[in-house]
């Protein structure tokens, strides 16, 4: 048979992949919503790609936000956010770019619920448990984030939150609005005012 004959040739170069999903990651990067659609279908490669894109910035964002209780770990909130996002991905109708803002919004709600629950039994551990090295986010470098937060320190809370998501973490206006649970116009105005304040500070200093 012809296929067997072809397989028996060791020097035969590999033919180009004809199936679109031969390399899942490459195929998923083509369409704007292909990654989310594949993730909704339950493709593991799509989830790995989404995680690689957004997990780092989500973790940075959660670490930059006050969670209200020392016992609440940003890693746990991020982990729970990913699981909730996987459960509710069928309800998400945006594209790949909007997935980040939606994921941040899920994480924000989880953090709020966790903070609300922990308010009844607040704890203040004296020693922080050492990282066991299992979590891939255990050694995230926050030096850049700390520098950016220092520049935003003098801004009002709303403008700082919007600039952190839209500019520092590069999710844009829509992502910031979705992540913070505010309207797009509100996020746009806050971003504009925050940048204006920063510009004024730079000119004055």
């Amino acid at each position: 048979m012809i296929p067997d004959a072809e397989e028996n040739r060791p020097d035969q170069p590999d033919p180009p992949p004809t199936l679109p999903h031969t390399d899942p990651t490459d195929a998923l990067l083509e369409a704007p919503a292909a990654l989310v659609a594949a993730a909704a279908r339950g493709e593991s490669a799509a989830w790995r790609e989404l995680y690689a894109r957004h997990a780092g910035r989500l973790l940075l964002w959660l670490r930059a936000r006050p969670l209200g209780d020392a016992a609440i770990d940003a890693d746990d909130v991020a982990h729970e956010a990913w699981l909730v996002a996987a459960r509710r991905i069928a309800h998400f109708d945006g594209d790949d770019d909007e997935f980040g803002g939606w994921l941040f919004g899920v994480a924000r709600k989880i953090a709020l619920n966790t903070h609300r629950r922990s308010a009844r039994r607040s704890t203040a551990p004296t020693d922080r448990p050492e990282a066991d090295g299992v979590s891939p986010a255990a050694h995230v470098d926050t030096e850049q984030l700390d520098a950016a937060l220092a520049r935003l320190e003098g801004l009002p809370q709303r403008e700082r939150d919007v600039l952190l998501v839209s500019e520092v973490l590069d999710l844009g206006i829509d992502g910031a609005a979705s992540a913070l649970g505010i309207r797009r116009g509100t996020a746009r105005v806050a971003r504009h005012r925050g940048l204006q304040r920063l510009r004024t500070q730079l000119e004055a200093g």
Partner: protein
Amino acid sequence: MPDARLDLRITPPRLEPDHAFADEMASLASSSTAPSAMAPWAPAIAAVTVGAVAGVAAWLGGVVPGVDSPLSPEPAESPAPSQTSPATDSTVPSSPSPTPTVGAPNSEPQDAATVGPGSTGPTRGPGRGAGPGHDNGSKDKGKGKSKGKGKGKGKGKSSARGDGQGTHTEPGQDPGTTPTSIPGIGAGSSGSGKSGGAGAPKKSRAHHGGAGRR
């Protein structure tokens, strides 16, 4: 012109999930159901629910033709509404209706189907059965707003009792028996029926109730 000094962007770390976690998310995503999957059932369920509620309400209200309301104290069978009409016609011949909009009910005052659609409340009209003929008349007699209002408020009790007594005892003498029921019956007998079509729903209800209980 964008200011480079305002560039706050950082390079977030690229994290890779372990395979177990990625597989867990994939399995969760595959088991999640889209909200649109339930959408086709929603209109059907809503329609069935609305239909059931409307049917029960119509049954309780006695609107369904041929089916008595379980809430009515007496069966809604009229012995002879046509007998009363001629008598009342003679008693009150000159009862001009203020707004004679529908002329058809005049010819057939007892036809429930004709009266029902003519009145503003389409379902209630036919439900009262033989009442419509008298109802039309009652409105005509009522002329005055005071009469109509009084009947409408009373809805039922006063007019129904009066009509019932009148018909049961002597159908022909209804106009003379009770002062309250006289106008209603008389008007019905007058049969001009003009108000049957243009009658307000409240008024028609009150009259219908009275007539139906005969």
